[in-house]
């Protein structure tokens, strides 16, 4: 069942059309991540779900009620902000109890909810402190705690981990995923970091300039990007892109020019492409293999070697951006070596000049 249904949502700031006809279903109890580069409209969508931003046209329904005209407090949601947005003059306890006091719950009920949340987040010993006396990570826990105590149907997160250092971010990522399992709530999570999206999401929605570029499960987006943007955005290091031309086309296969060295046969065939058309070949670093196999391969000079232990990334000189190749951690290849790289035929993506997948 869908918890949140967004239909033909539009938002303008002056003449700036920041959300362009977005439609989206968010499943009940799912962990949905809206991801995209800065300024693509992620926060705006989240804030419209929360009721903090007016909607120009379209509808948002939560739990089968259209909430366009409901104020935030009537939407059964809670939100966690990037800046934590704690109440600085209140203790941690009061920060978490503020909403509950407004709901006029009994003292015992408030106590038990705050202590439960504090226990889940391991901040029991901080309850009497003020936000100023907490570290960034602790503040973020309090902000999450404030959301939990209200027992909302939907949790909204706006880049909650961006202000934390890298180690803490990884730790909180795991804890948020755990929290999602514990609470059985619907979570909508906004981030510009594709790693966060890949690691936490049930479903990823990739946004590009106010439009949904593609949505699906993390692995679906990873293996079957529908366009150049998603291909380049999901995955780290980035997918390699090679601008090229179609040399020959038959009903079973396409032959393209591979960096001027030789032709390269792809098994895919498409009806609407002709010989001579410009296309972009995309292939991920791990689908390139250092080998002696000369079929569908290319020779290049290594100019950077990144050793991560678990793997090694080789940066090869080519026109435009370098070609990145992943190889095993104990590889002996050095800067300056010329190596032969084989392309995995089944893992190549071809994008047409409109940046769509062929």
């Amino acid at each position, binding site marked *: 069942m869908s918890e949140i249904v967004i239909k033909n949502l539009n938002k303008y700031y002056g003449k700036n059309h920041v959300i362009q006809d977005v439609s989206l279903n968010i499943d009940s109890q799912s962990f949905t991540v809206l991801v995209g580069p800065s300024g693509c409209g992620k926060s705006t969508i989240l804030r419209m779900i929360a009721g*903090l931003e007016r909607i120009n046209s379209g509808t948002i329904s939560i739990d089968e009620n259209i909430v366009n005209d409901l104020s935030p407090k009537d939407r059964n949601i809670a939100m966690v902000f*990037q800046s934590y947005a704690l*109440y*600085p*003059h209140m203790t941690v306890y009061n920060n978490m109890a503020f*909403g509950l006091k407004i709901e006029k719950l009994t003292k015992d009920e408030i106590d038990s909810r705050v202590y439960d949340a504090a226990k889940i987040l391991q901040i029991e010993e901080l309850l009497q402190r003020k936000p100023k006396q907490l570290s960034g990570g602790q503040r973020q826990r309090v902000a999450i705690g404030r959301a939990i105590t209200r027992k909302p149907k939907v949790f909204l997160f706006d880049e909650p981990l961006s202000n934390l250092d890298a180690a803490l971010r990884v730790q909180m990522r795991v804890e948020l995923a755990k929290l999602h399992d514990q609470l059985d709530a619907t979570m909508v999570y906004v981030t510009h970091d594709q790693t966060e999206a890949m690691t936490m999401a049930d479903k990823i929605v990739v946004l590009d300039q106010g439009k949904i570029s593609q949505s699906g499960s993390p692995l679906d987006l990873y293996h079957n990007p529908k366009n150049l943007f998603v291909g380049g955005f999901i995955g780290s290091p980035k997918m390699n892109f090679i601008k090229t031309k179609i040399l020959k086309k038959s009903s079973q296969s396409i032959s393209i020019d591979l960096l001027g060295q030789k032709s390269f046969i792809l098994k895919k065939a498409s009806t609407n492409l002709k010989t001579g058309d410009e296309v972009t070949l995309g292939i991920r670093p791990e689908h390139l293999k250092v080998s002696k196999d000369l079929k569908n391969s290319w020779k290049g000079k290594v100019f950077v070697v990144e050793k991560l232990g678990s793997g090694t990334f080789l940066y090869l000189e080519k026109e435009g951006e370098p070609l990145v190749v992943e190889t095993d951690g104990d590889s002996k290849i050095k800067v300056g070596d010329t190596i032969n790289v084989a392309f995995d035929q089944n893992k190549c993506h071809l994008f047409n000049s409109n940046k769509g997948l062929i």
Partner: protein
Amino acid sequence: MTFFNFIVYVVIGVSAVLSYFVLANWAHDYLVGKFSKKNLQDSIFRPWIFMAPALIILLVYLIYPVSETIRLSFFDNYGREFTGVSNYVWAMNDSDFRQSILNNFLWLIVVPTTCTFLGLTIATLADRVWWGVFAKTLIFMPMAISFVGASVIWKFVYEYRGAGNDQIGILNAIIVYFGGDPHAWIAIPFWNNFFLMVIMIWIQTGLAMVIFSAALRAIPEETLEAARIDGASEVRIFFYIIIPFLSETIVVIWTTITILVLKVFDIVLAMTNGQWGTEVLANLMFDWMFRGGGDSGRGSTIALFIMLGVIPIMIWNLRRFKMEQER
């Protein structure tokens, strides 16, 4: 030629100050270098060279007047004969003095509170209407007028002509227009104090408003949004989130205006000169000090009472300031 003289004096003054610093610093280096083997940077004398001018000015214009005032308060009207505490005894029994103390208290209670309240209210509301900027400009403008100038304006507002005549004071004109009787507002005992306070409030609300406006801007929008999502009404947000955020600012404005009010003088002098029960300490002091031959003993005694009122607020302010620094 006066303009030319002015330039000359400025040049002479500035070069005198500059040469003091340069020469004193040079002399210091020379002497310390000669008699001490320590590093010149560590010299304990240098700070004093640079602080000396400020310290001397402080001494001459602050410490000396205070001690002289204390001394004079124990002397007779010419400051010649020691008379013990007789000036203080006089003050305790003087009806004008008692009235002034009472009125100063009244001012202290009403004016800072009203200014702070109005300033905050207007600053909050003005951000919600399109003509807010215009309203704020209008309310801020009296700040540019001196207390005496403002008093002249308000004298015309409160102006009274006998019944039957044309009323040139706008307040009476309005009242008569609606069929009421004109009143000599500033001569109505007790209430006239409030009519004078209105002038100070009219001027100072602008200051409070401008400072509150800036402070309100500094409240993070996301915190207010978090409260809205928590279900807080706008009124609740104002009292539970915004006011605590502004507590520092409220204290600053409140004390600034309190100190100003303790020294209130020009308005009373220009409007009533303390008649009809509107006397305040500063005007009473001025009266005794400089009028009817002058009585430096009694004048100084009253001056000390004003200082006594300001000191606790100053100390409290300094302490708060220090606490803020340490935080």
